[in-house]
């Protein structure tokens, strides 16, 4: 079946090597282009230490890199520092001002989609819509585990999206909502940090059964004598999520971008915990035409025992995408 799904990567994926000075913006873009991850998603607050005061020269350099490597800017990951002050939360006006700042910067950087972080107040999201529309920028609410489409918090945004009916308002699913098998890089790290093997096995087994009451697991682990590492692992497990990929279908007209979260590419065909072979056919069959933007999040779980090779992990994910998207045919 033909489709118009495009491949890209979020620079989030390379955070370990960038933090350690082993990769810079140019080498990260060059590596991505080498395996066809041509859509580049950026976290300006990571890339630019002088955020939000980017110079024209920095912006020119950003576009020059895309011209050099044949890549394009895709999405801009924004944050809203509601707790910037210790004594009070941001007001509605301050929140909208923060999003307007991001809309202006997204327009300068050529990123047509802004990833609206999940803690953004729904009223801020709604009030920012007219300016986004005026600037031709889309505000895509991130659907991130453990949030699901049927949760109250998300329902408030869906109500706004349907009622306001602005071309600027939509969604950005993070594929971390489709963790079918508990990521072993996470449980292995817990074991190295002192978790109890029997309880780790139990946590994995409970998670992989996808019960509807995952939130009770932390208490159960406490009652079974769990130590702090066991408790933390149970809490982590309750923060993951598996729902059927078909859950996306009713929201398909509103999907602006997808963060293709992953924890461990075992080889060129298989992610350990997220079944992309079940997800991608749903996207193809239902006409998704945005990016699959890699978001590697395994680094923090393996950095204590092995050098992190984010580029190789992302390369493998793209080898898998090439197959699943039928690009190899």
């Amino acid at each position, binding site marked *: 079946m033909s489709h118009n799904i495009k491949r890209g990567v979020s620079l989030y994926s390379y955070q370990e090597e960038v*933090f350690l000075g082993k990769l810079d913006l140019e080498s990260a873009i060059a590596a991505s282009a080498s395996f066809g991850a041509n859509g580049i998603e950026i976290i300006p607050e*990571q890339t630019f*230490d002088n955020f939000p005061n980017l110079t024209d020269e920095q912006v020119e350099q950003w576009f020059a890199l895309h011209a050099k490597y044949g890549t394009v800017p895709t999405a801009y990951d924004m944050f809203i*520092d509601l*707790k910037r002050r210790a004594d009070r939360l941001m007001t509605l006006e301050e929140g909208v001002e923060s999003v307007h700042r991001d809309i202006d910067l997204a327009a300068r950087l050529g990123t047509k989609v802004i990833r609206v972080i*999940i803690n953004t107040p729904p009223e801020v999201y709604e009030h920012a819509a007219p300016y986004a529309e005026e600037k031709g920028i889309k505000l895509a609410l991130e659907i991130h585990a453990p949030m699901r489409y049927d949760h109250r918090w998300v329902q408030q945004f869906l109500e706004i999206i349907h009622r306001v009916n602005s071309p600027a308002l939509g969604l950005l699913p993070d594929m971390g909502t489709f963790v079918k098998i508990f990521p072993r890089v996470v449980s292995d790290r817990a074991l190295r940090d002192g978790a109890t093997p029997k309880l780790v096995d139990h946590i994995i087994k409970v998670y992989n059964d996808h019960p509807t009451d995952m939130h009770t697991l932390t208490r159960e682990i406490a009652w079974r004598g769990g130590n702090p590492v066991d408790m933390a692992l149970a809490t982590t497990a309750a923060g993951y999520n598996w729902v059927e990929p078909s859950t996306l279908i009713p929201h398909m007209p509103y999907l602006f971008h997808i963060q293709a979260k992953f924890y461990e590419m075992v080889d060129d065909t298989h992610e350990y915990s997220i079944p992309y072979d079940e997800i991608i056919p749903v996207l193809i069959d239902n006409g998704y035409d945005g990016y699959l933007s890699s978001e590697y999040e395994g680094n923090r779980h393996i950095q204590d025992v092995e050098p992190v090779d984010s580029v190789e992990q992302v390369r493998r994910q793209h080898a898998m995408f090439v197959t699943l998207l039928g690009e190899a045919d």
Partner: protein
Amino acid sequence: MFDRYIIVDGSLRNVGDGNPTGYAIDTRIGYYRGLGLSMVDFDLEVDGEAVPKESITFQVHGHDYPADSLGDVLDDRWGFNEAATLIVDHPGGLPAGEHEVHYRQWLRISYLPTPSQNDDRKVMSVAG
């Protein structure tokens, strides 16, 4: 998530020409993006002794802030790629040899229910 890297290894040194006025270490933000300084808090122990907050200056890209008033700084940020130097007022500096530095950092990240804590401990040498 970057606990193990938040103390820049080997960065402990005495500061001040001739007779040291104190010592310094370089630190990194334990997060995947930069953050406004008002959302950053930390504490420091050297050789098991807490270092008084009022004796520490937090320095980032050439700007100096008293560590105990970082929470009031609303117009500057600590970048993801930048080291911040903690300069401790400690006449005479540290004696030559090995010292254990314990640095804990709390980041008030708005999408998390409680501040994110990073914790690092490194033994570093001060030159004689």
